[in-house]
């Protein structure tokens, strides 16, 4: 994992995150499980210490070099924290013993927040499940093996720390076409520094039945519904585009704990006229399919990675490079889309884990440009649809989204951290 100087290079997709990190664009995501038993913090701390010895990919700290950011082995011990009142806040790494992930606990919850430079959702999920499984093992509950669980007795696999982007990059392909500007959610009522979460709990069977009747996937339905809610709320004239992260592991048949995802951008242009929900979802379905084309993905990988492998770019000092990376990230990332919807899909865990996990939550951070983000995950028969927003006193998009689901006959149970008096 380390080279001879003790440096651990960041993977090709994560180089952008430290350069662009700020209070309102913190690139943090959160995975958590609500468990049926009462969490013992002493056992959880012990489990975490065992897991960090095994999952060395996460046992790192971020360092700023002269030319690049890099990881270095972290000799500190990670500690668990009391559950926070606001999810996916910017991480104070100094207070967290320099780790790029933070473990929270409450009476019935084990949660981990990750800085995106460390891993993507799949890698984070493996870490969380390994931690929960280790906790159960320390409580003398044997957990069956699963691809989501790394055994503390096993040796570290070569695949865990692989930079898959470097393996798949094709330098001779062209660059992908330009994508124009789009609408950004209006910041009515201003922004708050504390993430406002609205979580909807949906029955997986009912949702699946609805999706089958519509002949679309659940992800396509949620994407189209988010687009419709934004159009209804903001009445925009520019295109409403949604960024949909794609897990590249299945497409390229590679595996890693580190970042290996790209995003498709799908949406409609309300300037072309009023769209019905059926028209929106059809367009979402077709454009997602088009962007799943492997040749198209090759061009995006080349665009994202080639610039970092360029010897000229490598020689430029980091303080000169950072502003350009920031601009690049906005131009090729944030300015291209209106909001993000990230779907972890159904988390398949061994029976012992499924028996004790009540619900699974996934939150993604938002930003000043795109202040509303949606994350979906399901376990067992429970699906959680979680909005994280930095819009103060304004959750109209969330309200429209969930009201439509209820109109379609899908019961939704709402929980939030918005305080009384806030809307």
């Amino acid at each position: 994992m380390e080279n001879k100087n003790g440096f651990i290079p960041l993977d090709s997709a994560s180089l952008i995150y430290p350069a662009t990190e700020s209070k309102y664009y913190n690139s943090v995501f959160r995975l958590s499980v609500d468990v049926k038993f009462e969490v013992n913090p002493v056992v959880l701390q012990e489990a975490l210490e065992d897991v960090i010895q095994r999952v060395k990919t996460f046992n790192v700290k971020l360092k700023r070099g002269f030319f690049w950011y890099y990881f270095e082995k972290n000799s500190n011990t990670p500690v668990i924290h009391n559950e926070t009142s606001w999810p996916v806040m910017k991480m104070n790494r100094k207070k967290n013993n320099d780790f790029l992930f933070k473990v929270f606990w409450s009476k019935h919850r084990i949660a981990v927040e990750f800085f995106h430079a460390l891993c993507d959702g799949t890698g984070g999920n493996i870490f969380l499940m390994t931690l929960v499984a280790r906790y159960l093992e320390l409580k003398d509950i044997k957990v069956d093996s699963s691809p989501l669980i790394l055994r503390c007795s096993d040796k570290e696999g070569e695949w865990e720390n692989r930079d898959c982007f470097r393996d798949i990059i094709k330098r001779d392909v062209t660059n992908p076409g330009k994508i124009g500007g789009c609408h950004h959610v209006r910041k009515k009522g201003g922004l708050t520094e504390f993430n406002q979460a609205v979580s909807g709990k949906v029955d997986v069977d009912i949702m699946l039945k609805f999706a089958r009747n519509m002949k679309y996937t659940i992800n396509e339905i949620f994407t189209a519904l988010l687009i419709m809610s934004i159009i209804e709320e903001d009445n925009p004239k520019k295109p409403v585009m949604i960024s949909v992260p794609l897990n590249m592991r299945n497409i390229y048949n590679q595996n890693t704990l580190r970042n290996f995802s790209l995003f498709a951008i799908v949406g409609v242009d309300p300037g072309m006229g009023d769209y019905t929900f059926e028209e929106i979802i059809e367009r979402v379905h077709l454009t997602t399919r088009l962007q799943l084309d492997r040749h198209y993905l090759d061009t995006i990988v080349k665009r994202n990675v080639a610039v970092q492998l360029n010897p000229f770019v490598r020689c430029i000092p980091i303080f000169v490079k950072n502003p350009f990376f920031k601009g690049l990230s906005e131009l090729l990332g944030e300015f291209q889309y209106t909001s993000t919807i990230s779907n972890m899909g159904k988390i398949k865990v061994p029976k012992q884990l499924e028996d004790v996990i009540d619900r699974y939550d996934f939150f993604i951070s938002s930003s000043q440009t795109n202040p509303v983000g949606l994350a979906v995950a399901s376990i067992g028969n429970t699906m959680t649809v979680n909005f994280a927003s930095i819009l103060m006193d304004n959750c109209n998009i969330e309200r429209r989204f969930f009201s439509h689901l209820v109109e379609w006959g899908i019961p939704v149970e709402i929980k939030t951290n918005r305080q009384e008096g806030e809307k």
Partner: protein
Amino acid sequence: MPYCVNCGVKLDDGQKKCPLCGVPVVLPEEIEKKPEAEPLFPIPDANAAKEYGKALSKGAKMTVEIVTSLMVIAEICCFFALFPHPSCWISMTSILAGYFLFLSIQMSVKLTYTNIATKIMCFVGLLVFAIDYFINGQISWSFPVISFMVLGWVGGVLPVMVKKIPTLPFIIAVASLFALFPLMDYFLGWTGWSLGVAYPIICFGAVLFFLIIIRTKIKKLIELTLTDIILLSSASVCFTVAFGDLVANGWEGITWSRMLWIIGLCIVVFEILRTSSKKIRNYFTANNS
């Protein structure tokens, strides 16, 4: 489990209104009210927000915008003012290099108010110094400019950094002003304006500031009414102007300003009496019955 009659979503037990639309939850009395369900995240206490640091207030954000905008405007003005000068290439090069540095700083440092303001001021100060030195071969006009920038930093940035003693930065600012003006007067050829004009104005500002601080912060110690502030400010203005005349013309030369000394002293004596005697004070207040 209650439902929102507007959105149709299920709500947590014990929820008083819908978090999405704000419509109150009204349950029929015959339905047994259940205890409140566990919230999604713990309800924040007073210390919860501290961990994430305090955000910039609207006022601070506005100050950052104003400071940054003024710096940029000042640079553009410098550029055009120095353009016809024979050594204009120096100003152009330094300003262009400055812009590049400025952009790098803006985009690479952590965007905190103190960070931005300090780095911008350092950078603009160096730039001003360089332009002055290269063009004139000596330090002339850049000295007062840089001095005022330092004062601006003490008054505008230091209070944000030193939060425990709010009046300390102000005291430092006033003290540095007292030192700065004679120095500037000396550099620009001694005329005595620092003593005759600058000092009295600083004193007037300081008096006004302390009066406001006493009224707003130290209410328990001395209760100052609006009348007190107006009267004491007026006395301060009288002394300021009279002192200017005194420095300009000497004791023998003062004529009209004598009246100002008398008015000022009268006000001060009157205020002392008003503060010390409750009877006198009550006589001048509306509820003196």
